[in-house]
């Protein structure tokens, strides 16, 4: 058995089939336009304002529509699909509550620069502004969390709008674009003439090619640096620049740390890789950043979880910042060498110009020593299951080759720490917004994008209950996601902060009353397994891997475990709590 993923048809075939000028409805225009953009599957949920669109989808087989159980599930699935494939994710919801249920997912994608086209229905144009049934001003509501948005008032605009939306979502700094289609527009008939490939957007010209002068400055800075450090982020993966990055590191031999969203941009087994930086990053990465005299940020945005206290971040370093978004440069950290451009393009132009950082030998030795002295560690146990051990076991048994999605919290940080990624687009997590409920639906999307790969969704017992209804989608479509629940019976990350920062005042974190996850899985027709010690864990996981379809595996772990290292808020990143292991 395999997931029911539609065959990918060539756009050429589809063009021939669908390019004919013809008088059709707005809804049919939407479907044809999606096909012409190369869409293979959409995630959605019908309702009153999108009835014409769903009517047009009746019997339509050129792309797959996945009916989720909640609009939030639909948009997180589209997000997971986009992150895993690099293509634009598409979801559809109705007006009012359908649209507002997408808001968390739109913000999630916006914060992590994920290309989505979000289609919502709205009440008819004649009813807009009258507080009609299921009316919500979704373009207004989502303005701060979309890259751009459209309210289509004339069916003739639809082909152009859809083409522009895909262009905007997938170029420059990627992001979600919303298209709001009133019901009368989706019903209206017009002559469909497919939009040409030309996009005419005067106010939108992402700068891909950097200023050569700045590249020369960087090459010079590398030659002079004694303690250079690379901080690589999601931009490397989004631009397809991981090979160019590898070449850059190979040439310069500069140690490299990758942010939460940058995991997989560089092989974790490489000796120059120091792990993740920031709040729960490695000791080595944080110390290295603080001691560095040249910090080369490649496609990361100096998020507060990475920098810690800004005043005191990388105090000795000359700062280089490579980013496609000019607004990121200088936003948080004053920059000495700004390089605006597409990361891949920048690195490919840079690589022939750079040489081995020749003055940095003592530094490389220091980095290796730090790595050896301060690896991640935890106190293992033979009586209770430790969450870190579980992630290590998942990593070992899958050789770091799975696609891993997570929810948000302690399990997310442990996964980032103990799962060792070697390929881009294998790690799917809500970094910027930190959205609970993301783990399961995003895995469904990732599996749709890569039917042949092993997809593991790692969740906590809290976040699992925010979108658990999507187990139904795994069951009916036979989407073989392996759903891991790290169950510590508590909201672990909140517990950790309450323990360490709020004097053990544990306020409303006990998840007593959670369902029996094995029975929950079985209720959806999904195999459910539980493990409470190492032996059971190995056995259950082996069984999960051998099972062709979806499986839920619950690992019951110790309750009081903390994520270390930890930089508390307001500290510089070299001030780390290391735990007692």
């Amino acid at each position, binding site marked *: 058995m395999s997931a029911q993923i539609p065959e990918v048809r060539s756009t050429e075939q589809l063009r021939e089939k669908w390019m004919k000028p013809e008088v059709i409805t707005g809804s049919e225009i939407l479907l044809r336009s999606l096909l012409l953009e190369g869409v293979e599957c959409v995630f959605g949920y019908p309702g009153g304002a999108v009835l014409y669109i769903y009517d047009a989808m009746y019997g339509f087989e050129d792309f797959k529509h996945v009916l989720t159980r909640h609009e939030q599930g639909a948009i997180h699935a589209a997000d997971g699909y986009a992150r895993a494939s690099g293509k634009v994710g598409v979801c559809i919801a109705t007006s009012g509550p359908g649209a507002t249920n997408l808001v968390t997912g739109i913000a999630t994608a916006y914060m992590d620069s994920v290309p989505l086209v979000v289609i919502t229905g709205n009440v008819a144009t004649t009813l807009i502004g009258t507080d009609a049934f299921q009316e919500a001003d979704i373009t207004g509501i989502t*303005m*701060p969390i979309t890259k751009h948005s459209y309210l289509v008032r004339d069916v003739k605009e639809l082909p152009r709008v859809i083409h522009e939306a895909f262009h*905007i979502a997938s170029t420059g700094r990627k992001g979600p674009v919303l298209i709001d289609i009133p019901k009368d527009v989706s019903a209206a008939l017009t002559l469909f003439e497919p939009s040409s490939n030309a996009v005419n957007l005067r106010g939108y010209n992402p700068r891909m090619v950097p200023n050569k002068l700045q590249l020369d400055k960087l090459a010079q800075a590398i030659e002079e640096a004694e303690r250079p450090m690379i901080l690589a982020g999601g931009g490397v993966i989004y631009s397809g620049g991981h090979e160019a990055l590898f070449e850059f590191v190979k040439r310069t031999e500069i140690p490299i740390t990758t942010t939460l969203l940058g995991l997989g941009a560089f092989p974790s087994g490489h000796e120059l890789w120091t792990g993740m930086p920031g709040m729960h990053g490695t000791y080595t990465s944080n110390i290295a950043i603080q001691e560095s005299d040249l910090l080369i940020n490649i496609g990361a945005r100096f998020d507060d979880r990475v920098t810690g206290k800004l005043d005191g971040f990388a105090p000795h370093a000359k700062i280089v910042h490579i980013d496609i978004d000019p607004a990121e440069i*200088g936003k948080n950290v004053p920059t000495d060498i700004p390089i605006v451009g597409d990361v891949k393009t920048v690195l490919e132009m840079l690589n022939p110009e750079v040489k081995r950082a020749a003055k940095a030998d003592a530094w490389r030795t220091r980095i290796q020593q730090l790595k050896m002295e301060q690896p991640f560690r935890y106190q293992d146990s033979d009586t209770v299951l430790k969450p870190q051990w579980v992630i290590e076991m998942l990593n070992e048994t899958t050789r770091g080759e799975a696609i891993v999605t997570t929810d948000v919290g302690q399990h997310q940080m442990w996964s980032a720490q103990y799962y060792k990624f070697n390929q881009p687009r294998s790690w799917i997590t809500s970094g910027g917004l930190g959205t609970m409920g993301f783990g399961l639906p995003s895995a469904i999307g990732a599996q749709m994008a890569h039917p042949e790969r092993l997809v593991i969704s790692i969740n906590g017992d809290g976040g699992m209950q925010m979108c658990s209804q999507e187990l139904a989608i795994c069951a009916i479509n036979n989407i073989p996601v392996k759903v891991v629940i790290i169950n510590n019976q508590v909201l672990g990350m909140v517990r950790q902060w309450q323990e360490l920062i709020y004097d053990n005042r544990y306020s409303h974190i006990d998840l007593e009353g959670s369902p029996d996850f094995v029975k929950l899985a079985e209720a959806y027709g999904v195999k459910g397994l539980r493990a409470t010690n190492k032996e059971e864990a190995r056995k259950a996981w082996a069984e999960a891997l051998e099972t062709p379809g979806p499986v839920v595996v619950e690992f019951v772990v110790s309750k009081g475990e903390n994520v270390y290292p930890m930089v508390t808020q307001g500290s510089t990143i070299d001030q780390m709590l290391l735990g007692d292991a």
Partner: protein
Amino acid sequence: MSMRHTIAVLVNDQPGVLQRVSGLFGRRGFNIESITVGQSEETGLSRMVIVTLGDEQTLEQIEKQLYKLIDVIKVINLSSNPMVARELALIKVIAEPANRPEIMGVVETFRASVVDIGSHSLMVQVVGDSTKIDAMIELLKPYGIRELSRTGVTAMIRGNV
């Protein structure tokens, strides 16, 4: 150092564009002292003139963040150049017949004009830079201002640029 800046923003004349711009200022904590919008020299484009307070870094962020809006075509920092900045105010001031000559004196000194006369009031129109209008308001306050309406600043760079 926090300073007053006047910027012009050329935008597509699209529904919601004012909301996009003002929303951006709101959510990023940028200050708007005044904002004016109207037609520009080109069909389909509107020109906004925004007066804002902030240091150099904030101003840089404002410009960059504005450019991220798809409907923003061009951002010009007017106050980094010699510029002409003008504002118009209508001031309805309480004016009993006995006070009128005195008020007319103020109006003439400021090269303002009286655009309406009521039985107990005068409506004064004044055009100038914001400091001139502030001064005019201060001088009329003692008579009693019934209503005040200011347009906000519109501005242009001097010369052939």
